[in-house]
Structure formats: structure tokens, C-alpha cells
């Protein structure tokens, strides 16, 4: 190596001679590039606007239509004793308290099933499996699982309960099982991503202190990834809280309040919305007073849809707050 300088040889000996003026950018080519840059900026801005239109429309429609019937009465009564378009003795037109309870319990049940399993599966994939064959298979199948149509998940849960608990079994928990099937892949995926971005530094730091792997994972890795895991789980919940089709066959539909997740049918908000939409119009007999509102089912549907969006919003906010509280500063 020391001799390299002695027999010094130009790099460019033998290199073709290049006329760089040929490649010099012309005014027009520069302008064309600039125009393209502006054009793409415009296009990207436009994409944004285009996407906003329907999304704003969805929100706007739901809010405007939903606010009409969204009041305390609507939130504190269920649908028992509601007949046609007639008002109930309490002065309202029925409400969604049973559906809110159903939504929360069934989704809660799905959470209890899928979040621990999902997190542990992600832990397995990231901390133990190190990209082995089994891990590859599992993560492929997790992707496949995220493509299971919700209705198939419903059919599956329904049949499973039929086999285990006898024919025709319908209860809230069955709905939870169906939903957890849909939720699991999202939980696994997002937790996997979150665990992956925990710096390896921290694992090594902990292990170097003579801490066992299990404690390193639970107390350092999971703790550090917590905010991300929480928002991943919230996203997963949001994914299933609006499911209708699988719940129609697993959790059923009832107009009274049922707080027992494990027995009896339960209504959730999306199912409620769908059923009210299916009713479309209520009948008002010829002799009915003006208090009878024929369009009440659709109004209830929109109001319930709005309640559902608000619940999702609140969940999102909780997720944000939790993420903030447990936030981890990674960089100085």
C-alpha cells in the first residue's frame, strides 16, 4: 500500500472524454423540471382536497342528521315499549342505552380475548422467533387473517358456539369471539411494529444488568412500546366496533337492556343503526296525533351512528392521552 504513491497513476487515464456541455441543463429543461415539481405539488394538494370531500361529507351528514335526535332521553332509554312512531311515556322516542352497553361489553370482551393473545404473539415474533420459518408462517397467516371477511368470522363463531354450547346459542360473548377474530391480526401487526422500533440498545442495557429475558421484555420492552401498543389496540378496537354483519348472527338483536355478556341477546350500536335503517319508516295510524313521527327510525339510525362515531372519537382521545402520559422520549 505504501508504494501506491510511488507508481502514481492517474485515475482517469484511459477514461472516455466527456463533453459536459452536452449534459448542461438547458433553460427549458430546467423550467420543465420546475414545472413538473409545481405540477406534482399541485396534484398532491389536489389529492388531499379530493379525499377531504367525501370524508367531510360523511362526517357532516352524520352530525347534521344525528343531532336531531341526540339528547339525554335518547341516551338513557332503550327500545322496549316503543311502538311505531309514537312517543314513549318519558317523552322520547326510544333510545340506545342498551346498544351502548352492548357495544361496550362486546367490544370489551373482544379486547380481553385478543389484546393479550395479540401482544404475546407479537412478543413471540419479535423477541423469540428471530425470523425463523415458523415466525414467517405465522406472520403470513396473520396477514391472511386480516383478510377474513367479517361475515365469515361471524359464521365461524356461531358454529363454534353451536357445537360447544348447543344449537341456537346466541349471546354477547359469542359476538366478542367473532370480533376478536377480526381484531387479533391488527393487534399483532401493530404490536409487532411497535416492538420492532424499541431500540435494541435498551434490551442490551437491561440484559447486561443481569436481568432475565422475561423481565427485560415485560418491564423494559413492553413498557417502552406501551404508547404505541395502546394506539395500535385502539385502532384495532375501532376496526371492529363498527361491525354489523357478524354480530347480527352471533349477538342477535333485542330491544331491552341486557347487561349479561354471557347469556341472552345483545344489541350493539351498528346493529341498531342497521335495524333502524331497515325499518325506514314507522307507521302512524290515521287518528294519531302530531307527536307520532313517521321518519323516526331513520332519525334514530343517524343519531345512533353519531353516538358510535363519538364513542370511537373518545376512544381515540383516550388512546392519545394514554400515549402522552406514557410517552417515551427517545431522542434528546
Amino acid at each position, binding site marked *: 500500500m505504501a508504494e501506491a504513491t510511488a507508481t502514481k497513476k492517474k485515475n482517469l487515464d484511459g477514461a472516455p472524454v466527456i463533453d459536459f456541455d452536452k449534459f448542461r441543463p438547458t433553460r427549458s429543461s430546467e423550467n420543465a423540471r420546475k414545472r413538473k415539481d409545481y405540477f406534482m405539488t399541485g396534484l398532491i394538494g389536489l389529492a388531499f382536497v379530493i379525499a377531504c370531500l367525501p370524508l367531510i361529507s360523511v362526517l357532516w351528514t352524520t352530525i347534521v342528521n344525528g343531532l336531531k335526535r341526540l339528547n339525554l332521553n335518547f341516551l338513557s332509554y332503550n327500545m322496549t*315499549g316503543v311502538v*311505531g312512531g309514537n312517543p314513549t311515556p318519558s317523552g322520547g322516542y326510544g333510545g340506545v*342505552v*342498551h346498544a351502548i352497553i352492548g357495544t361496550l361489553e362486546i367490544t370489551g370482551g373482544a379486547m380481553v380475548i385478543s389484546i393479550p393473545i395479540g401482544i404475546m404473539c407479537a412478543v413471540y415474533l419479535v423477541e423469540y422467533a428471530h425470523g425463523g420459518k415458523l415466525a414467517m408462517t405465522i406472520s403470513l397467516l396473520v396477514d391472511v387473517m386480516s383478510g377474513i371477511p367479517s361475515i365469515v368470522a361471524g359464521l365461524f363463531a356461531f358454529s363454534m358456539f353451536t357445537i360447544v354450547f*348447543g344449537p*341456537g346459542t346466541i349471546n354477547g360473548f359469542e359476538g366478542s369471539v367473532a370480533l376478536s377474530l377480526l381484531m387479533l391480526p391488527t393487534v399483532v401487526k401493530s404490536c409487532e411494529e411497535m416492538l420492532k422500533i424499541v431500540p435494541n440498545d435498551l434490551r442490551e442495557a437491561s440484559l447486561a444488568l443481569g436481568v432475565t429475558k422475561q423481565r427485560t421484555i415485560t418491564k423494559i420492552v413492553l413498557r417502552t412500546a406501551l404508547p404505541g401498543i395502546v394506539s395500535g389496540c385502539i385502532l384495532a378496537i375501532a376496526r371492529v366496533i363498527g361491525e354489523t354483519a357478524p354480530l347480527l348472527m352471533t349477538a342477535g338483536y333485542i330491544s331491552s337492556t341486557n347487561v349479561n355478556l354471557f347469556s*341472552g341477546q345483545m344489541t350493539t350500536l351498528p346493529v341498531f343503526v342497521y335495524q333502524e335503517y331497515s325499518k325506514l*319508516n314507522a307507521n302512524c295510524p290515521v287518528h294519531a296525533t302530531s307527536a307520532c313521527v313517521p321518519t323516526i327510525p331513520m332519525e334514530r339510525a343517524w343519531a345512533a351512528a353519531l353516538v358510535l362515531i363519538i364513542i370511537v372519537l373518545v376512544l381515540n382521545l383516550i388512546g392519545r392521552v394514554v400515549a402522552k402520559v406514557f410517552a417515551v422520549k427517545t431522542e434528546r
Partner: protein
Amino acid sequence: ACGDNTASTSNGGSSSTTKSEPISGDFQGAGASSQQAAVEAWIAGFQGNNPDAKIAYNPSGSGAGVSTFLTGATAWAGSDKALSDDEVKQSEAVCASGAAFDVPVYISPIAVVFNLKGVSDAGKHINLDASTIAKIFDGKITTWNDPAIADQNKDLKLPDTAITVVHRSDKSGTTQNFVSYFKDAAPNDWNYDLSENWPNSVGQGAKGTSGVISTVQQADGTIGYADFSQVGKLGTVAVKVGDSYNEISAEAGSKVIEDSQLDETAKGDNRVVVKINHETTAKGAYPIVLVSYAIVCPAYKDAKQGEFAKAWLSYITSSDGQKAAQDAAGSAPLPSSLTDKITKSIEAIKTK
């Protein structure tokens, strides 16, 4: 329970004929979505007399309702179709003794609704006979000013708007009842097998009665069929019966049932199955109706269920019950010609 609206007691308990103890407990039914509005009213009315009875009805569809009933998970099923022989046989495994039977509980006229500028929004009806309606729904007549339509509606100015047929996209008893009218009343213009699925690909399909109604509302020139109670502001077709065009109404629907026979081919005890006389010429009758049944066992493994089934059917077929359904769902009352037979069948339910 929490959030319950105190049951509306519009039907004073005194007028009820029930002398027995009030029913209490949890009871489930499932089935036809067409009955939903009526069942809601019935539940409210029934609970007026039996405040401790908790009743749930899942409008999961006739087929699913019957399947669930046949597993023994529900006390009764609602169905737009009478039981098949097979189903009757299967029910023997579920009922404590005997086989399940069906009785009509809900009769609702099916309206042929349309949306046509200058006609329906002016509150006018259109007169059509069975063959014309069949041709429209088979895509043979495609504009509103087709001579076949115009001839029957001399006093209307019909535009040349294209006809958009709107039918159910899901399996439906409404569809089956509707097309069975064509099969009987215009057999030459309707060559499809009887089925709960819409048979041709004319026009547009929509999910559920609500889908049909909202689709019809959304465009000019549409025509569809739907339960009478859902008609709203849409125009309806007056159907030719005999020599006159009869408009739809609950009473008119009732009349065709009055003029109908029982289906004697239905095998099994206590069954009351109506064979709708679509070719009726009864005065003021409206021939396109849906008859929906309640399906129960003559005896239940759990006597309580039997007690409930008996009380429940008695109530919903009583004039009080029928009145409640009429108010809540716009249905047609059961004609007196049927009530006796129904009552007799109900009496057969064992409560011990």
C-alpha cells in the same frame, strides 16, 4: 331493566279475555323481518298485561327464524312462508309431542310503488292490471307512456321517462308473495319459477324493504314493491280486480284473504295455511298481500314456554292484537273467516 320505557298500556287490560295468571319469564322469538313493527307493538301490548314477561324478537329473517326454532332455541318463529313438509318433520324432534304448526298472524298488503315526475308527486295513482305489472317487472314495458299503461290511465299525462324496475336483492318473502301474484293472475306474462329470489336481471336490486323504498325515492321513473306501511309519499298502483281498479288499503288486503281458501295440501295437525286467491273478484279487494305466520309447537319441553306460546298467540290474533299491529305497522286485520280456525289451533297448545 335499565332504560326500559314503561310499557304503554293503550289497551286496557280489562278488555283482555285472559283469565289466567300473568305470564312471567324470558321468551325469545325470531324470524321474518316483515313482522318486526307489529311484534314490537305486540310485545308492548302483551307486557301491559304480563309485566313480568321479557320478550325478545330477532328479525333475522324467515329462514333463519325457522332454523333457530327448529333447534329449540326460540319459543316461536315468525315466517313469511308456511312450513315445508321437511320442516314439519324436523320439528318433531324439538316439540315435546306432535309437530310444529303455523297460523297466520300478520297480513300486509304489498304496494306497487313508483316515483314519476308529474304523477306521483302530484299525489296521483296509476291504474294497472296484473299483466301490465308483470310485463313492467319483466322488462317488456320500458317507458311510462307505453300504450299498455296509457290505455288504462286515460286521464293522466304520462311522460316518456324510462322505467327503472326496483326489486329486492336479498332473499325475501315479500318477493315470493309478489311474484306469486303474477303466476296466478298473469301466468302468460310471467314464466319464472316461484322463488324468494328475484328471478330476472331487469332493473335494480336493493337490500331490504328500506333499500327498495330509498332507491325508488332516489330517481325519476322508478317502480318497485314494498310493504304497505313503508310507502310514505310515493305513488301506488291501483290494481285491476274484476272490472275495477282497487287502491291499496289495509281493509282491501283483508278482503282477499276473506275470499281465499285454506291450503289443504299442508300436511300436519292444526296448521292454518292460506292459499291466497290472487284472482279474486271480490269487491274492493286488493290482491297482492303478504301473509306471515307464527310457528309454534303443540307442546313444549318446558311447560312455561307452552303457557307463553298459548297466551302470546291468543293475544296477537285477538282483535286487540290485530288492532295494535294495524296501528303500528299498517297491516290488515285477520278476517273473521280465519280467526275461528286459528283459535282452535291455539287451543291445542298444551300448557301442562
